């Protein structure tokens, strides 16, 4: 059985990113930095209508704009569009301004159709249909166990509440996009993607090319969060433009585009009923939930079913439960996977309800969790958190904080049931006689530190320094690896590198005749290789990685009861991480996850306009994110559990945050704000200071 070393120099310690200097100095080349010969700008024309029958798109005038080299249609000259921002056509030209002028010159003839953008409106039977052949909303399917109704009547305490979460946008710092060059030899795409292989396959399919004729490169990337898998419309359009223009095309989406058509986290409207025995043991649970994943797909029969479901009752094993969920289709861009799909809204809903129940029963929120949480690790995490956070000193009865600015504390838990390694991860290493070594893996580094993880694991096992390990990822010419989603990259590549290193050492020892080629013997051993380098191939092996991951978080907030402004004072995350590979990049993941969760709790919301059907806040002035000045002190306790192997942690970090903050706000002001984001107006409405319908 393979085993991770117990005494380590790099694994579980902190190593700076191997590409940190390149990124900080601008030497790192992202998809939008590729300056292929005679490259052109590409831009997309999008639908101005939330729903319309497009009868004609005339590109002639656009092609006459000076500098414009190509114009292509997205789906042909006549089509039905179902949301504001759906792609119609694209142009390529020598300057951004030429492209902008060309987009304005394209003539589109359209017959606007009725549309609906709000979930509650779309559910009505007389609502305009998003898909002609199916209703927007199908009767929810129920999952039931136990005797729910009779169980509630036996409960000592029951609460009912409605908890809702908004549409959250991914908004990676690097927008979606590609630089694509189509020549006789084939297509090369420098893509901002979480899955180079899926882009290659998708692009080859769309362009009717052999997969071996398509090469995808992602040397550096500025985030994906689930929204960047496969060859998107913008990718295929860039390739078509490149073919038509006979020149490479760089087509990066704008921040505006990012708000419309490249994914989001579905909304949720959770009606929850929760009941417990006198000692706080949960006995009965009922939830009706609906949300929207945008237009979904036609194959869903309307409704975008499945895309908006959340796990329930999530963290708890409740003997009697009934869960009804349905998705509702609206005229808006489709949802995509988004950092721990389904989990942050699930955590927010159940953890809010549980706190409401605890308050009603006069129980401490931590106490009721310890009583009901079936996971031993998470109970341990609560115990650690209570100590570290000073919960017992800080927790007061809800609303009892004195003064105008009230403080409060809250906690919440989370889980992530994926994060295991992918069997199909391959990689290779080339060892040269001068002692240099290069690892090549067909995975991609989203910015999480994948390259650094490879260097750390290899350095540990070969007893070299991480900077001696040359790491190349993000190229479909390398042995293939999985897409980076579900927090699986780290547990996929670490065992793969382990396998490569084991095989490399065996070969090196055999060739050199040295019993140990590691560390100080490395160069001596390599010298004996001769002219031909050693190339070893490795694959993911079992026993070095696992899942799932849990985590709990605590938050302390200050709420100004005159203005409604919520300030997060402190956050604490306690997460189990399996074997920690690199502490520094792990801490970055937790920080980032918690800040993203804070945005979900307090600021972020895609606002649709039901008058015009457009996204009203398609920029960072109006789509609010936590700024650096909003970010509080973040503390974390990371449980290193080498015996469990490597576990992905990118997603668990963002799951409990919103629930913890929402519970802290409720604890501060004594009433529940049950809808995210918790804006000043909602706080004031909850306090009865302004009418509820104004929020």
């Amino acid at each position, binding site marked *: 059985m393979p085993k991770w070393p117990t005494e380590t120099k790099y694994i579980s310690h902190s190593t700076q990113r191997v590409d940190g200097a390149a990124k900080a100095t601008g030497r790192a080349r992202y998809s939008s930095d590729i300056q292929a010969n005679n490259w052109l700008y590409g831009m997309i024309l999008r639908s101005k209508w939330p729903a319309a029958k497009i009868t004609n798109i005339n590109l002639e005038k656009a092609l006459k704009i000076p500098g414009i080299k190509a114009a292509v249609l997205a789906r042909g000259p006549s089509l039905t569009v179902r949301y*504001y921002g759906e792609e119609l056509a694209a142009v390529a030209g020598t300057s951004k301004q030429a492209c902008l002028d060309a987009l304005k010159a394209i003539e589109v003839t359209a017959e606007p159709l009725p549309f609906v953008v709000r979930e509650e409106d779309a559910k009505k039977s007389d609502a305009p249909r998003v898909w002609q052949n199916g209703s927007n909303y199908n009767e929810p399917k129920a999952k039931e166990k136990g005797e729910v109704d009779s169980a509630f009547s036996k409960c000592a305490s029951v609460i009912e509440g409605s908890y809702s979460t908004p549409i959250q946008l991914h908004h990676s710092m690097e927008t979606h996009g590609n630089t694509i060059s189509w020549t006789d030899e084939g297509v090369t795409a420098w893509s901002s993607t979480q899955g180079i292989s899926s882009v290659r396959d998708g692009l080859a399919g769309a362009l009717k090319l052999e997969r071996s004729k398509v090469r995808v490169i992602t040397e550096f990337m500025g985030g994906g969060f689930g929204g960047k898998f496969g060859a998107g419309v913008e990718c295929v359009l860039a390739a078509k433009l490149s073919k038509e223009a006979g020149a490479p095309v760089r087509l990066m989406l704008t921040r505006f585009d990012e708000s419309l058509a490249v994914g989001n986290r579905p909304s949720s409207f959770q009606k929850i009923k929760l009941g417990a025995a006198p000692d706080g043991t949960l006995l009965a649970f009922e939830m009706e939930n609906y949300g929207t994943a945008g237009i979904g797909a036609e194959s869903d029969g309307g409704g975008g079913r499945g895309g908006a479901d959340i796990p329930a009752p999530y963290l708890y094993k409740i003997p009697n439960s009934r869960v009804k969920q349905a998705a509702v289709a609206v005229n808006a861009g489709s949802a995509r996977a988004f950092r721990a799909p389904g989990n942050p809204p699930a955590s927010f809903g159940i953890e809010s309800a549980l706190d409401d129940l605890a308050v009603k029963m006069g129980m401490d929120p931590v106490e009721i969790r310890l009583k009901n949480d079936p996971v031993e690790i998470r109970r341990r995490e609560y115990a650690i958190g209570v100590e570290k956070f000073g919960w017992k000193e800080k927790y007061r009865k809800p609303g009892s904080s004195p003064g105008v600015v009230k403080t409060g504390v809250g906690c919440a838990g989370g889980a992530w049931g994926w994060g295991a390694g992918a069997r199909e991860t391959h990689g290779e290493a080339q060892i040269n006689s001068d002692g240099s070594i290069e690892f090549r893996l067909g995975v991609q580094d989203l910015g999480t530190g994948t390259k650094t993880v490879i260097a750390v694991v290899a350095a540990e096992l070969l007893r070299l320094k991480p900077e001696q390990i040359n790491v190349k990822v993000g190229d479909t010419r390398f042995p293939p690896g999985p897409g980076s989603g579900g927090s699986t990259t780290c547990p996929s590549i670490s065992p793969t590198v382990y396998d490569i290193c084991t095989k490399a050492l065996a070969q090196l020892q055999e060739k050199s005749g040295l019993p140990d080629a590691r560390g100080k013997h490395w160069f001596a051993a390599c010298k004996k290789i001769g002219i031909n380098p050693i190339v070893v191939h490795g694959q993911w092996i079992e026993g070095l990685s696992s899942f799932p991951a849990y985590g709990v978080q605590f938050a302390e907030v200050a709420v100004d009861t005159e203005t409604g402004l919520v300030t997060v004072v402190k956050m604490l995350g306690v997460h189990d991480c399996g074997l920690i590979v690199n502490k520094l990049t792990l801490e970055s993941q937790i920080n980032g996850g918690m800040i993203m969760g804070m945005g979900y709790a307090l600021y972020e919301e895609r606002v649709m306009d039901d008058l015009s059907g457009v996204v*009203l806040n*398609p920029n960072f002035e*109006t789509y609010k994110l936590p*700024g650096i000045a909003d970010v509080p002190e973040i503390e974390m306790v990371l449980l290193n559990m080498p015996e469990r192997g490597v576990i992905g942690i990118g997603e668990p970090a963002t799951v409990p945050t919103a629930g913890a903050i929402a519970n802290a706000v409720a604890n501060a002001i004594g009433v529940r704000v049950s809808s995210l984001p918790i*804006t000043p107006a909602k706080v004031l409405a909850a306090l009865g200071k302004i009418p509820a319908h104004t*929020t």
Partner: protein
Amino acid sequence: MKAFQYATAYSTESACQLVRDNGAYLAGGNDLLGLMKEYLASPGMLVNIKALPGLNKIEQHAKGWNIGALVTIAAIEHDPHITKALPGLREAALGIASAQIRNVATVGGNLAQHSRCWYFRHRDIRCLKKHGETCYARIGENRYHSTMGILVGTHDTSLQRNRSGRGTAGPCPTDEAHRPLPERRSCVSRYASARTLQKRSLRRFLQVESSHLLCHRPAKLLAYVQAVSRYLICQGPVCY
């Protein structure tokens, strides 16, 4: 944006002449360049007014303060006398945007910026201010709008939501830029007195007034009120 000509003015008179009918005054450019990029404004001539004499001073006199239109927000933030005498104003300045923006943003530009209305700023919505027929902000998604109950009518905004929470007609559905400047000035100065400025609780006072608008950082409004309340626009052209 559309192509434009560029000139620097060294006197108020030449600035007025240069700007003529389809020009725009350029100081910090934070608002103007955004409007131009979105094709919401397409001036043929940009007149750089940063070289106009005498407009970048912060001066105290017997009755109060004069803050020139070309004084940057950062200058207010860093002025030791302001820090001492008008801590509320400094706090408001500090709350605006980011350091990079404060370094170039001027007080005049802050006051004269166009509506922060989401409908007006949206490229695909033709609202009343863009020669359309409807003011969507009145009936639509106005929860986040930067309007303030007591101050609507002074800021260039199309909607007033009063405390009853119903969208009601604001006094300025037409293009505010056509209003004579003195009226705007007097309008604002009625509301925020010098006394208010000196109170530590100013921020809270103003946030209460704007709280139903969900603006989690109404800093720009703070600066607006505070600056105007001190009769800050003393001289020279500031709007486009």
